[in-house]
């Protein structure tokens, strides 16, 4: 299914009318009868013994229906099971939905109140009595791994959360034989996903069917269902999870959260009344998982001509106080993605996780690959400077020439075609004239920089050769007797618009306009298995599942048409509005009706038009490209102005261009945020300083230039659609492109490296330090 840039491919999404008129319902919008509202009391200390939690006064407060503490969790196991992980030495401290006798981060839930109104619940929090005995907190992950560091948890002997080592070839020999070793230390600070809709959940226990229903602003309803069933000691068939309209996720709504379990526990207690919790933005910045959080050192062993001989990457990962329910996902992906699109004959990756007394870190757009790409693209630029090579040429010299290659973790990757992507980029941005503009403005005294970054994004899992679980997704198609088409998908949507792509896939195969296709997602009762959204694979894997289901339906329709036409199925052709053989035809409507009526179907053609497919990905899917940033720096204030941004991406065969462009631009905006604005900051005692949008700076329209996108279409060999993941590339490529541009802008000061975010004061200090050194 190759699409040229025809109008049809840019068709607006059908569901957008509902969104743009405001009639879509997010969790907080769904009307419920006799709703109870939940507020959570959260720890004020980063690390403390919990001596006493007394809910008696809260229970007596006006409008309160229930107030619970750890002692009231007996209907559950108290915590979610951890998903399998491929790291070594995985430790998980004792954890429960409400803290038992120790709190591990500011924001950890300690008690919960359900009341008749939000205000009553909020007021009742003040009636809860808690006594803490503060303990030493450990905040910096590198310090946490020092031998005499305070322990993040009293129950663990030290703060090591996991180990991950991977390697290929003889790294020591490579470094011994190098003409040059270039070393760079880098920080990827914690980031907050800041989906505009905060988390929220409504739970209701239905006594008649002994069933729990949970509506949640989640990215993975099926995974959540499994987690809830396990912890509440219910059969999965007794738990239904619905992800209604979800206002963004970006990875932060992928893991199961304590608050989801707490509303379920309260709902059981207060049945049949529905129980709702909606997060405030403060809670979101404090207690929703953060992304990134790696301190790394990367070393490249190089020949004098710039060829890479070997690579070492050592990093400490800021795990936070606990692992999320899918532990160490991002670090595994770092190990899989280090080395990017380059030929690296020998490599060694070593990641160590450190427990710290902060909220856990988990996936965030580009998880793990952003850190790896930042390190690789920065060190390549640093190497180019040291070896006096052009940054473009050093990359060209090292791009892999193989179609499939193996990174340190050993799982084969479709290597894409970065050289072509780079060519396309340089052409799209008129590179020579950009350099000309830079030179002219430099001569006039301005600080102007150009930076580029190439990337190979590892999507759809494929993180480790030790993987037991294969990445799969479900897709279903049903055609009713009147010919209407329903598509079912196990992926979920937080606005990416996969529905339009999936509808298009089905509609093309079935020969119907996309508008008659309804896509159902997000409800575990409508589609029973699924993996939700993560890793940019909704279309590549989810779409492949739908494609297969649609093909089977198409084959069935032909069989039924053949039965009606009384000819062998091989002779049936699809024509406009139906099927034909020779001069006889039968309409699509007749075929659909007959498939259900089954009046004249042969024995080998069962009735019905419904197919469900569990589709396993053949392997990790990759996307690739190159981005370029053009910046100027105000020499007096250090402010960085992003003047131009060019993106050349290859997302394979694109099913829905509007959607894919939207993902590219959205990812780039988040990458720009990471590069210039965003950083989670704690003080030394573990109090969160970036606790509102007044401190945590998100990109605004006036921060961004018009991004110029160009595209290649190199089909992926890993799925029949030829699609590649589009969702995360921008967030991966933009930070290094901008970092490289700013280092280029500061070239006259001899600045070798800058850590993100490139806040004005940081840049100003670099300039000043250089001026004071007399550079």
């Amino acid at each position, binding site marked *: 299914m190759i699409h040229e840039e025809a109008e049809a491919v840019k068709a607006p999404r059908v569901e957008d009318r509902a969104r743009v008129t405001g009639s879509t319902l997010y969790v907080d919008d769904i009307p419920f009868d006799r709703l109870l509202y939940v507020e959570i009391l959260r720890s004020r200390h980063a690390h403390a013994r919990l001596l006493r939690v007394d809910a008696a006064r809260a229970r007596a407060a006006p409008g309160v229906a229930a107030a619970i503490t750890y002692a009231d969790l007996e209907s559950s196991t108290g915590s979610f099971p951890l998903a399998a992980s491929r790291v070594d030495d995985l430790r998980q401290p004792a954890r429960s939905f409400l803290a038992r006798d120790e709190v591990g981060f500011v924001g950890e839930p300690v008690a919960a109140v359900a009341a008749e109104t*939000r205000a009553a619940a*909020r007021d009742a929090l003040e009636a809860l009595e808690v006594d803490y005995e503060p303990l030493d907190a450990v905040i910096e992950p590198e310090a946490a791994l020092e031998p005499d560091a305070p322990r993040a948890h009293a129950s663990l002997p030290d703060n090591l959360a996991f180990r991950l080592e991977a390697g290929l070839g003889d790294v020591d020999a490579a470094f011994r034989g190098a003409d040059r070793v270039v070393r760079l230390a880098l920080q990827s600070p914690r980031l907050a996903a800041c989906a505009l809709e905060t988390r929220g959940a409504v739970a209701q226990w239905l006594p008649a069917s002994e069933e729990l229903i949970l509506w949640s602003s989640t990215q993975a309803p099926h995974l959540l269902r499994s987690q809830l069933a396990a912890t509440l000691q219910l059969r999965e068939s007794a738990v239904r999870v619905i992800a209604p309209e979800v206002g963004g996720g970006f990875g932060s709504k992928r893991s199961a959260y304590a608050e989801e379990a707490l509303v379920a526990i309260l709902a059981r207690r207060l049945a049949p009344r529905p129980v709702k919790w909606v997060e*405030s933005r403060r809670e979101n910045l404090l207690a929703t998982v953060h992304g990134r959080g790696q301190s790394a050192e990367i070393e490249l062993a190089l020949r004098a001509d710039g060829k890479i001989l070997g690579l070492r990457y050592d990093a400490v990962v800021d795990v936070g106080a606990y692992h999320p329910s899918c532990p160490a996902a991002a670090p595994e992906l770092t190990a899989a993605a280090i080395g990017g699109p380059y030929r690296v004959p020998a490599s060694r990756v070593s990641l160590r996780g450190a427990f710290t007394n902060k909220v856990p870190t988990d996936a965030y757009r580009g998880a793990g690959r952003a850190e790896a790409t930042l390190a690789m693209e920065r060190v390549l630029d640093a190497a180019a400077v040291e070896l006096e090579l052009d940054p473009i040429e050093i990359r060209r010299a090292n791009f892999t020439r193989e179609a499939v290659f193996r990174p340190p973790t050993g799982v084969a990757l479709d290597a894409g075609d970065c050289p072509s992507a780079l060519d396309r980029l340089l052409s799209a941005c008129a590179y020579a004239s950009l350099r000309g503009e830079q030179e002219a403005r430099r001569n006039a005294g301005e600080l102007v920089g150009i930076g580029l970054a190439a990337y190979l994004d590892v999507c759809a899992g494929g993180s480790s050769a030790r993987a037991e679980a294969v990445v799969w997704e479900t897709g279903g198609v049903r055609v009713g007797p009147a010919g209407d088409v329903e598509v079912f998908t196990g992926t979920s949507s937080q606005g990416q618009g996969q529905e339009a792509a999936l509808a298009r896939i089905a509609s093309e195969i079935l020969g119907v306009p996309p508008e008659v296709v309804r896509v159902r997602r997000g409800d575990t009762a409508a589609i029973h298995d699924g993996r939700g959204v993560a890793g940019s694979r909704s279309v590549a894997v989810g779409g492949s599942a739908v494609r297969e289901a649609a093909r089977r339906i198409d084959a069935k329709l032909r069989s039924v048409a053949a039965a009606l036409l009384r000819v062998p199925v091989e002779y049936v052709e699809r024509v406009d509005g139906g099927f034909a053989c020779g001069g006889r035809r039968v309409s699509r409507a007749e075929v659909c009706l007959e498939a259900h009526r089954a009046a004249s179907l042969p024995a080998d053609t069962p009735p019905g038009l419904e197919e469900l497919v569990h589709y396993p990905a053949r392997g990790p899917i990759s996307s690739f490209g190159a981005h370029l940033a053009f910046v100027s720096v105000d020499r007096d204030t250090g*402010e960085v102005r992003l003047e131009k941004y060019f993106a050349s991406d290859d997302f394979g065969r694109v099913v829905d261009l509007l959607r894919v462009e939207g993902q590219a631009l959205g990812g780039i905006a988040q990458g720009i945020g990471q590069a*210039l604005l965003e950083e989670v900051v704690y003080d030394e005692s573990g109090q969160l300083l970036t606790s509102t949008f007044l401190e945590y*700076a998100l990109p605004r329209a006036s921060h961004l230039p018009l991004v110029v996108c160009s595209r290649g279409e190199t089909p992926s060999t890993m799925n029949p659609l030829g699609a590649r993941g589009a969702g995360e590339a921008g967030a991966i490529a933009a930070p290094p492109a901008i970092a490289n541009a700013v280092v280029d802008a500061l070239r006259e000061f001899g600045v070798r490296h800058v850590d993100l975010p490139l806040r004005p004061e940081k840049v*100003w200090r670099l300039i000043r330090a250089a001026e004071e050194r007399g550079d």
Partner: protein
Amino acid sequence: MIPAAFEYRAPRTVEEALALLAKHREEARVLTGGHGLIPALKLRQETPALVVDLRRIPGLGDVEPLDPAPPSPRAAPPDPFCGGPGRSGGLRIGALVTHRALAEAPTVRSRCPVLAEVAALIGDPQVRSVGTLVGSICHGDPAADYPAVLLALGARVLIASPRGERLAEVAEFIQGPFETALEPDELVLAVEVDRSAPASSAYYKVRRSASGFALAAAAAVVEIEGERIRSCAIGVTGVTTRPFRAHAVEERLVGALCAHGFPEAAARGASDGQSVLDDIHASAEYRAHLAEVCIRRAVEKALSRR
């Protein structure tokens, strides 16, 4: 997100409002636009028993021309740096005048264009629709925009109380972060600017990236005579616990040739002796440096408008 409970009154006269304040004193808060008070209520940083909304009081929403009158016995002596021949009358800006109204009012644009310039830069369009100048200075955020230009204009605050009316210099009125000289039973009716500002006035701001508040900003009101700077007034906000006039810098600029632009190093040490803010947004050292940059750029912009 949910404020603690409080009661609400919307009096119809100034007298009624004053009576409520006299009765409830520290337990009452005055509401104009709401962008200072309501966020504080939501975060429970403020928990008054009563909120007094001024929106029903007629006459507070006007920008009035204020033509020179004999100084009242209670007014402080006029600021010598804001005087000058040939300037026409000033403005009285009522308590309910919004940032947008200020930015668009013809009298402001003709008499005090730099004030309109500042008003147009505050926050965002929604904030400008309802936020008020008086509300802003009563809230006293050290990162607010107005203090710089009000200091440079020598503006005064018209305060009403059961004891009558008084005028206070803005410099005395703003005492520190979120602290003003307002007594619990007093109400600000208006801000007055005695005389109009020359066209050679300008505002330069470095924004905090998250919120758009001033990380550092300076307003320069420059009186020009012939080819030289006769005098200038420079107000600085965002940098220190209290907004301040950069008197040392002002003195260095007197007599300078306009064509030469801002003299090298004339802004050095502008924040010396002030209590410079140091927080998550910026260190004291950087802020002090930005003050110098903003002063220079504001003066240069002002000169370019002569």
